[in-house]
């Protein structure tokens, strides 16, 4: 058997190695983005901000980012609304085959994304709505709805039904109880679910690639296009900006609502 102390040391080392493994590519990206060289190389040879100035040379990067932002906000917003309904049914109502239903709703996470992409484009062509912004939104919803469902289920499981009973005994009807008591209790789950959904939609490539054409392209697609034709670190500069912004948003959300514990699941 392990001595308690030596076991802890082993776990600590393993933990730190895993962290380094996960964080290293991010650090590499950041470092490369400040390198003066024409090529992606490590360790860096000189310092420069040229690649940041060069971000605008990525084709349609501004409008594609705006489209991604719009699609992401809409898809995440709708997915969160759907997820509230789904989670309420799954947690609060006696249903037959609950595990099956839960597995079905969470399945997009486990299915190959490319398969979902192919299925979606065939479906949308059949409905004659392919390559429209709203079909892109709905395609993304299919992919991301599992995340808010999961976080809202966690919030609902932690929430206290006696609060709702207390509110109704004080004269609140069902809708009022939901609005004034249930929803505020679900806030951490709603916010973290929305955030995860948005982030996954925002940088999704494999589904979007099937669903976009011409003027309707998203940010990840334009960045990949650039990478496939150029070897310079401009995408690294863009990614660094992206990482910084996302990190700040997640940090703020965690400080305010403790979203990480919910996403991991208690």
């Amino acid at each position, binding site marked *: 058997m392990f001595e308690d102390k030596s076991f802890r040391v082993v776990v600590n080392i393993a933990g730190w190695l895993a962290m380094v493994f996960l964080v290293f590519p991010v650090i590499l990206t950041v470092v490369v983005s400040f390198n003066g060289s024409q090529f992606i190389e490590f360790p860096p040879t000189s310092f420069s901000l040229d690649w940041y100035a060069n971000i605008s040379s990525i084709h349609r990067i501004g409008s594609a980012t705006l489209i991604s932002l719009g699609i992401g906000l809409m898809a995440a917003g709708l997915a969160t609304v759907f997820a509230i309904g789904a989670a309420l049914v799954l947690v609060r109502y006696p249903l037959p085959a609950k595990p099956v239903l839960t597995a079905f709703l969470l399945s997009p996470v486990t299915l190959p994304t490319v398969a979902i992409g192919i299925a979606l484009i065939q479906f949308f062509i059949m409905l004659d709505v392919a390559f429209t912004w709203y079909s892109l939104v709905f395609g993304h919803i299919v992919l991301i709805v599992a995340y808010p469902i999961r976080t809202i289920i966690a919030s609902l499981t932690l929430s206290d039904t006696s609060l709702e*009973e*207390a509110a109704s*005994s*004080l*004269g609140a009807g069902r809708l009022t109880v939901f609005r004034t008591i249930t929803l505020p209790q679900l806030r951490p789950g709603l916010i973290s679910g929305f955030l995860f959904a948005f982030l996954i939609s925002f940088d999704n490539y494999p589904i979007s690639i099937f669903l976009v054409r011409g003027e309707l392209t998203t940010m990840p697609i334009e960045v990949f296009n650039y990478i496939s034709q150029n070897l310079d670190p401009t995408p690294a500069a863009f990614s660094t900006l992206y990482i910084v912004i996302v990190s700040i948003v997640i940090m703020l959300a965690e400080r305010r609502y403790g979203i990480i514990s919910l996403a991991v699941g208690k």
Partner: protein
Amino acid sequence: MARLEIDSIRLAIGENEILKGVSLDIAEGECVSILGPSGCGKTTTLRAIAGFTTPHAGDIRIDERSILELPPHKRNLGLVFQDYALFPHMTVTENIAYGLVMRKASKVDIRQRVDQILELVQLSDLENRFPSEMSGGQRQRVALARALVIHPDVLLLDEPLGALDRKLRDQMQVEFRRIQHEVGITTIFVTHDQEEALSLSDRVAVMLDGQIQEIGAPETLYQSPISHDVMTFLGASNVLTGVIAYDENSNAKVECDGGLVLKVNTTGLKNGERKRLGIRPENFTISSTIDTQVPNSFNGTIEECIYKGAYADVYVRINSGHLINVHYKKQHGGNDHGIAKSGTVVIGSNIFISVHPENILMFT
């Protein structure tokens, strides 16, 4: 203020019958407790009154009008939950004002009534705190204030003091009684704590296995219960069985096994009838010498003594072989009956215990 009638309600979950015809009539301004062990159906009864569960048979009426058809939010009842169920995202004021906002009271009216009730529960200085920033006792008061401020017809409490520690419980008991008297509201509360039930209510309804076994004033219920189950549930008792026999002067006595004979006061007993007897530990007197004036005096040896503070639980093996539980209280500055040395009872000492025939409870 209102009168509450629970009229033989029945409720089953699946095969399991939880309420087997519960009836309870509570007068205006009366405070009644439902006392019973966990799983006896007391909380289900409360939830049925509140409207969170619907009985399959029977009726619940407030001032002669059935409330069974009304949803919970239209019943105008004040509820205090066991864990208080305060809204964590609202301040004390917002919590208390919630019911008034639902009733569309004016801002001025709400402010006035919230201030008034905060004063009643002595929390005026904490009105802007959140529940998480308060102690258990304070939360309890907020929950009570929130339920009372809407002027409910009936106040319902679920184990109101259950989550508090001993000292706070005693304080809140006094406090609760004061508020209840001041407001004079019809109150029903459920508890498994007999001390709480006996000290807080005008009448106690003992509930066992989905039925109200017996209802009465706390003293009556404790001193002279009609049902054997109620006697054993309420406080400790020595339980004996024996056969009624009359002596030559036609005085009733009970012959128990082991040759133990108890004189009893009850009249109208049949000769040869088998009876169960109950004697409360505090109704025995304990003494080192036999007093021939006293009936029902028995010789025995102290086997165990458990110190409880205000008294000691003494277990005496009497000569018939029965182990009898007797409360021993050291008389202040007086005679300690010679059974105690420097305040403690000596195990193994030979003593006499006696009980007055009046204090022997008899059950079929």
